[in-house]
């Protein structure tokens, strides 16, 4: 606990300011580990090289505008599914949370069961439900909804729990103060508790968008043209599988990294923690 300067992370606090002997060892260790990392990278690059994957014909298509235009179309598809599913799951999650905290026993139990159900099944299983099972009952869904609905349901269970954690984080005194003013429970929930709860969980809600984005990548199962699906189409066109898949993976990683970063920045600004 230094009274001055930077707040110290535990990661650094594990180590003392080094003495001369430690400093020497650190330099040697740094050089050795740097060499090991370099060798690792070299081996990977070499593997790409000897298997011919560095050949220009696998990578030149990345310089073509049409490639990116088509990928961007897919990216828009991904965003459309992710944002629609995100918004809908927020609404459903809110409903589930309100039901669970309503104090009405049967409703609360039902909402709990539904929440636990959607949290406990793989989103792929939900996708197969909408892709294979729902049509058996004569219901025709567009491919957009066949991917959006399962992704939405899977997220809603998690969001219900995140929102509930937010509600629990609102100090009890707030509710008591509101009750002493003669406010009715529902009014207290919507006027006093929820606005604060949502403020607590905004960063967590944003970071859950990462899970939604990840779930959208199975859109190819229902042939919805998202980023992944369009990448697969391009692969057959260009016969450039390795480079294409790595490129798409990087796009997803950067997108999700950005979402996580945004969530962390907002969390810091609001002074709240991210619940996962």
């Amino acid at each position, binding site marked *: 606990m230094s009274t001055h300067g930077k707040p110290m992370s535990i990661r650094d606090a594990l180590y003392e300011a080094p003495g001369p002997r430690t400093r020497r060892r650190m330099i040697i260790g740094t050089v050795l*580990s740097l060499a090991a990392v370099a060798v690792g990278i070299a081996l990977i690059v070499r593997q790409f090289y000897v298997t011919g994957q560095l050949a220009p014909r696998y990578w030149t298509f990345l310089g073509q505008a049409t490639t990116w235009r088509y990928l961007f179309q897919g990216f828009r598809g991904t965003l459309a599914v992710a944002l629609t599913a995100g918004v809908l799951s927020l609404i459903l999650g809110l409903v589930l949370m309100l039901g669970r905290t309503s104090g009405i026993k049967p409703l609360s139990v039902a909402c709990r069961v539904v929440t636990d159900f959607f949290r406990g099944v793989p989103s*792929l299983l939900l996708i197969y439900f909408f892709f294979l099972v729902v049509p058996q009952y004569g219901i025709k869904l567009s491919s957009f909804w066949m991917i959006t609905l399962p992704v939405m349901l899977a997220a809603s269970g998690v969001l219900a729990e995140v929102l509930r954690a937010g509600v629990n984080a609102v100090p009890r005194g707030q509710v008591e103060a509101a009750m002493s003013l003669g406010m009715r429970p529902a009014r207290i929930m919507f006027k006093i508790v929820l606005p604060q709860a949502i403020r607590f969980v905004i960063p967590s809600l944003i970071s859950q968008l990462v899970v939604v984005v990840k779930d959208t990548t199975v859109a190819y199962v229902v042939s919805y043209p998202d980023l992944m699906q369009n990448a697969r189409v391009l692969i057959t066109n260009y016969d450039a599988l390795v480079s294409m898949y790595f490129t798409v993976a990087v796009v997803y990683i950067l997108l999700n990294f950005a979402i996580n970063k945004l969530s962390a920045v907002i969390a810091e600004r609001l002074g709240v923690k991210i619940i996962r």
Partner: protein
Amino acid sequence: MGLSELLSTYGQLYLTGLVTTWWMTAVSFAFVMVLSVAITVMRISPLKPLRLVGDLYVQIFRNIPGVALLVIIVYALPNLRLVLDYRTCVIVTTILMGSAFGSENFMSGINTIGVGQIEAARSLGLTFRQIIQQIVIPQALRSAVLPMTNLLIAVMLTTALGSQVPMSPQELTGVVSYINTRSTGGILAFLIAALGYVGTAAVIGLAGNRLDKKVRILR
């Protein structure tokens, strides 16, 4: 298809699917734990290059979608002369993703310890190794129980990626896809599998909560 018909025709398949999901989960999780520890050690090591590699690993594998990673391992790696059988591909995907989150859990477990306790241990004359053994590891492990329980459930759900590749025997989600493409199993066919997942998750959650109550560190 009614329940009895469904079970008589596909009961064995469901059971094998559930057991397959279980053991794929168990194997993956064991490796997830080992790798999580290794990655965490890199991330808290005093050597910058190792820290960087550890951080990068976590950022890549916590942000990559499971499907994207799976297709790379299944379809791209053979072009780089690394061929794994399908099941191994699924397990490796699960391990890579799971260990990124596992390391995050350990890191936040370590973060709850606080600089003060380290300084107190140092003041008593404990060496670095003793501080790690006596103060850091026990606390990090104990406060990671609940997050790791959730991770175990997440690992189980991730093994559903197995439905995207041919495997025999199939895991639970693959079984549902198989049944529904062959006959009209209806909502029941789906619910049986869902029950397998939800039930397993509930048991894991319960066990995790009990263990957590036992070892939780009061603060």
